[in-house]
């Protein structure tokens, strides 16, 4: 670690600054404060001899950064330096950074294991966030880092809602997003805890802010891309930093319990990690054997290249694991690996390793190991259990890279079904296990918040962690009974106990199936008209939630999330993997994928959409896609491929004219032909529809109905366009009411037009899930209602209570009504009189 010396005329000031720095970076950073004269009346001033002693007391081969106040502090420090041996002198840097800010920044950076140059750079940049905070651009910013273009600094303050705060996954998303903007200097500060600012582009720096749920963070961006960076980060925050609300792990903030706790007779008690009962033979998981040689090397460049090659191999492996997991679960679980990928690139690991190789001529494995150890120790030192677990992430990545470097033996793959028994499992180990063979997972160490635990939960594998080293005495093949819900594990269980548990497991399975069947039962009106109730989703994870809520399919899969917050467009493989994963999660139910609906309100850097005065009337959605056919066809090919395997439908947003529809349809045909030409499977037929959002399309529904397979009425936008009032503007928002008879009138015409030509019409949008709207829409002839998952059970119940044949009267009166309020009143009566 780089040592820090603070020199001031005032001993108290130096000590105060040191105290602040320690408070932030922890007690491990070698830090010395020196000031005043060593005389009885303690006069202000500086003393070269004292400074020399202070430097000697904390001297580190990694280097020393000396921060000083002014005047004689500089002269005395220079004098002190001259008294030190030359080989030490060249590892000591005098830094002009402001004393307090510089000391904090330097200490934090040092604690992350950064090199002398990095610590210096960090200290020198320490005024930028302060200047930004004050709304000033630091005058010397361009001098400090030429790469950061000058520009006003912008800030964004937000509360972190994620249950576990900004831990590795959300932190990784944040760093990834910030990192996409090379032209923006992005800093993050934990306002609540008074930590930071730190660079938002370093995963380690961000994590050390220790941001917990409910805390306020401030994001500051300066430079040409500041605005775009902040916009992307705001969206990320709106998206909860990409975190789904995972079920609360049974014991939060428990790191490890490496002691054997005996449960009832002959059982081991661990931490319940992932529920489920399993009975099967133990399969001992042998971790890879690693020997790390330490020796001097002659050719540092060759050694560094070897390390880089190993890191690249590691990256490829992690990406493969990520893809494997993404196919089995959702992108959130897969994002665990994103954090791992970021660690691979983090200068906090690479910098010290590079320094050790070039400056100390250490071999790559030892240099890397040391860097990994120091970063993981930095996490270990934090006063936050959750962050301490991240030490394991760093260690995992470090180990994987070492394996690649030392040609160590990879763990033997699982060849027979059973319960995996291990000391601990890394997410990569977990991902590598054959899901068809893993009945359960028991580990001696680790806890419910580890990434492997999160993976086990998302993969639905019963798991118990922290069973203690006693677990490792279990012999290969020993029969284990485990209950992931209680954390109990019985080696060689009594036959009666095993039978009892197997019965319980069976019973659990059947109650769950029954509950699912009930919620999944179709919504049929009393007089036998079936209304399809589907869900709107915006991510792969949503698909599962939709299913659990009883959705009969997905009526609207918004694909914007695939495209936002990134520098380059997602490629076909990535899109295919996502669409496929969503469709697979629906267990055979249909999904309607809506092609990209982006415009000036959701800028995508790679499309150059540019800001628009009126994005909702501008160049957006299918209009953009038709102007960028090659870009559009990437998405269409990915959809075609997913449709070859699953019941996928596709629809185009913002269609106003028949010409647009035909162009889009033709591009889809091209995409299909191109896919087939590559020898990839294509669906026999692909149901293709349009969204009805633009009044022009609604009014010409008859013409469209002759060519499309279905309509999906987007009531949010349709209402805004019909009423010419946007819902975001409080002064006119009341006008944009979907209950207005004008809107209902159009919906009814669209449904009739569709039915006239044997097509079907659905409604997606909040209106479809509004309990008062359901009788109206059913009465107007709508065949499918697609809504957010939580609205589904209620909507189903309402449909089941309706008498479709008697809704004509309601519809007639609603269409004859004058105001939205009148329509609501009528609908209320209808719901009440329809008990």
């Amino acid at each position: 670690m780089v040592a820090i010396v603070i020199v001031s005329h005032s001993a108290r000031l130096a000590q105060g600054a040191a105290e602040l720095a320690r408070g932030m970076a922890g007690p491990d950073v070698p830090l010395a404060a020196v000031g005043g004269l060593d005389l009885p009346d303690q006069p202000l001033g500086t003393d070269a001899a004292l400074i020399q002693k202070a430097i000697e007391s904390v001297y580190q081969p990694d280097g020393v950064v000396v921060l000083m106040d002014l005047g004689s502090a500089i002269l005395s420090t220079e004098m002190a330096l001259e008294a030190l041996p030359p080989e030490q002198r060249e590892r000591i840097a005098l830094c002009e950074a402001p004393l307090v800010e510089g000391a904090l920044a330097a200490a934090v950076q040092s604690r992350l294991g950064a090199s002398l140059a990095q610590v210096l750079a960090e200290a020198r940049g320490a005024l930028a966030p302060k200047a930004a905070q004050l709304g000033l651009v630091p005058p010397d910013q361009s001098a400090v880092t030429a790469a950061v273009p000058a520009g006003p600094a912008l800030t964004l303050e937000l509360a972190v809602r994620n249950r576990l705060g900004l831990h590795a996954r959300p932190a990784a998303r944040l760093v990834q997003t910030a990192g996409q903007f090379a032209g923006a200097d992005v800093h993050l500060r934990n306002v609540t805890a008074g930590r930071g600012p730190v660079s938002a582009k370093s995963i380690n720096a961000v994590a050390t802010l220790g941001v917990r749920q409910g805390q306020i963070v401030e994001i500051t961006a300066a430079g040409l891309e500041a605005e775009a960076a902040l916009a992307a980060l705001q969206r990320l925050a709106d998206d909860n930093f990409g975190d789904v609300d995972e079920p609360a792990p049974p014991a939060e903030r428990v790191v490890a319990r490496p002691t054997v706790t005996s449960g009832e007779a002959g059982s081991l008690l661990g931490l319940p990690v992932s529920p489920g009962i399993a009975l099967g033979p133990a399969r001992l998981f042998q971790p890879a054997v690693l020997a790390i040689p330490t020796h001097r090397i002659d050719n540092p460049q060759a050694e560094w290249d070897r390390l880089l090659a190993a890191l690249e191999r590691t990256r490829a492996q992690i990406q493969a694991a990520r893809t494997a997991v993404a196919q089995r679960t959702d992108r959130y679980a897969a994002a665990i690996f994103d954090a791992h990928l970021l660690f691979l690139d983090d200068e906090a690991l690479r910098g010290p390793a590079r320094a050790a190789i070039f400056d100390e001529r250490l071999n790559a494995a030892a240099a890397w190991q040391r860097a990994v150890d120091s970063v993981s120790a930095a996490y270990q030192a934090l006063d936050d259990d959750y962050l301490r677990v991240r030490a394991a992430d760093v260690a995992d990545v470090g180990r994987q890279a070492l394996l690649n470097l030392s040609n160590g033996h990879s763990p033997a793959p699982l060849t027979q079904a059973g319960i995996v028994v291990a000391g601990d499992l890394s997410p990569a180990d977990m991902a590598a296990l054959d899901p068809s063979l893993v009945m359960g997972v028991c580990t001696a160490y680790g806890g419910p918040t580890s990434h492997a635990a999160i993976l086990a939960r998302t993969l639905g594998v019963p798991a118990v962690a922290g069973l203690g080293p006693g677990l490792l005495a279990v012999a290969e093949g020993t029969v284990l009974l485990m209950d992931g819900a209680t954390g109990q594990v019985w080696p060689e269980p009594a036959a009666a106990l095993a039978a009892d548990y197997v019965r319980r497991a069976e019973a659990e399975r059947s109650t769950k199936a029954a509950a699912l069947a009930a919620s999944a039962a179709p919504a049929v009106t009393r007089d036998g008209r079936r209304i399809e109730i589907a869900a709107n989703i915006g991510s792969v994870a949503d698909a599962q939630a939709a299913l659990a809520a009883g959705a009969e399919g997905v009526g609207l899969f918004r694909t914007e999330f695939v495209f936002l917050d990134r520098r380059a467009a997602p490629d076909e493989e990535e899109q295919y993997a996502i669409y496929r994963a969503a469709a697979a999660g629906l267990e055979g139910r249909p999904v309607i994928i809506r092609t990209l609906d982006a415009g000036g309100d959701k800028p995508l850097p790679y499309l150059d959409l540019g800001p628009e005065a009126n994005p909702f009337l501008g160049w957006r959605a299918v209009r953009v896609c038709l102007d960028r056919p090659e870009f559009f066809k990437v998405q269409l090919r990915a959809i075609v491929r997913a449709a070859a395997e699953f019941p996928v439908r596709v629809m185009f947003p913002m269609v106003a004219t028949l010409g647009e529809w035909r162009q889009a349809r033709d591009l889809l045909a091209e995409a299909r032909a191109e896919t087939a030409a590559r020898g990839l499977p294509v669906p026999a037929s692909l149901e293709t529809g349009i969204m009805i959002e633009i009044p022009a399309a609604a009014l010409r529904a008859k013409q469209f109905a002759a060519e499309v397979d279905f309509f999906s009425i987007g009531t949010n936008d349709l209402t805004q366009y019909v009423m010419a009032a946007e819902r975001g503007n409080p002064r006119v928002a009341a006008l944009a009411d979907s209950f207005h008879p004008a809107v209902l009138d159009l919906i009814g015409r669209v449904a009739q037009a569709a039915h006239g030509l044997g097509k079907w019409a659905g409604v997606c949008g909040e209106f479809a899930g509004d309990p008062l709207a359901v009788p109206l829409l059913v009465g107007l002839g709508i065949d499918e209602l697609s809504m957010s998952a939580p609205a589904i059970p209620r909507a189903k119940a309402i449909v089941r209570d309706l008498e479709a044949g008697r809704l004509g009267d309601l519809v007639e009166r609603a269409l004859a009504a004058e105001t939205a309020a009148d329509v609501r009143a009528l609908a209320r009566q209808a719901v009440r009189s329809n008990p």
Partner: protein
Amino acid sequence: MTISRDAVVDWIKAFADVIAVNKDYLTELDAAIGDADHGANMHRGFQAVLTKLPTVADKDIGTLFKTVGMTLVSTVGGAAGPLYGTFFIQLGSATTGKLELTMADWQAALEAGVNGVVMRGKANPGDKTMVDALIPALGAFKAASASNAALPAALRDAAQAAEQGMLATTPWVARKGRASYLGERSAGHQDPGATSSHLLLKAAADTWADNSGNVG
């Protein structure tokens, strides 16, 4: 004519007395364009030097000067600490092992000392610092000895040049040290460091010019 070890000690003691007498004056000067501590700093430093002198009474002149320098470094506290500290340490290096100094020895020592101050503080002539007294003094001493002047005359020339240099600092704007933070407002005040430097060289001239037996 040489300067004996005792004469050197006398000079240091005499200067300590001069500082004690001028302590408030120097502080006043520093109050105008600095932090009002130059007199106190110098006084504290040279009082500490006085208590150290007996420990090196039987050592060579080089050791004596170095001890003065090291003591100043740890007791003056302000910029004058490392600056005069360096000055005396350089004097010491130039006179290592010597028990008396010839005129040439002193010239070489003074040159090393002044160079040390310039090296340490990186001040240029005209920056309104002690350098503005020291450099003319060194020049005058060299010129005098080049024209075969006797030591007392050369010392007096040096002290007078230092005084001229000191007075010249008054209208200048400071570009080094605390006073530089005042910018234009530092003009119109005499630099305290240049003043103490003048006193130092004047003490040398006064001490070594009277033929009291120390100088022979």
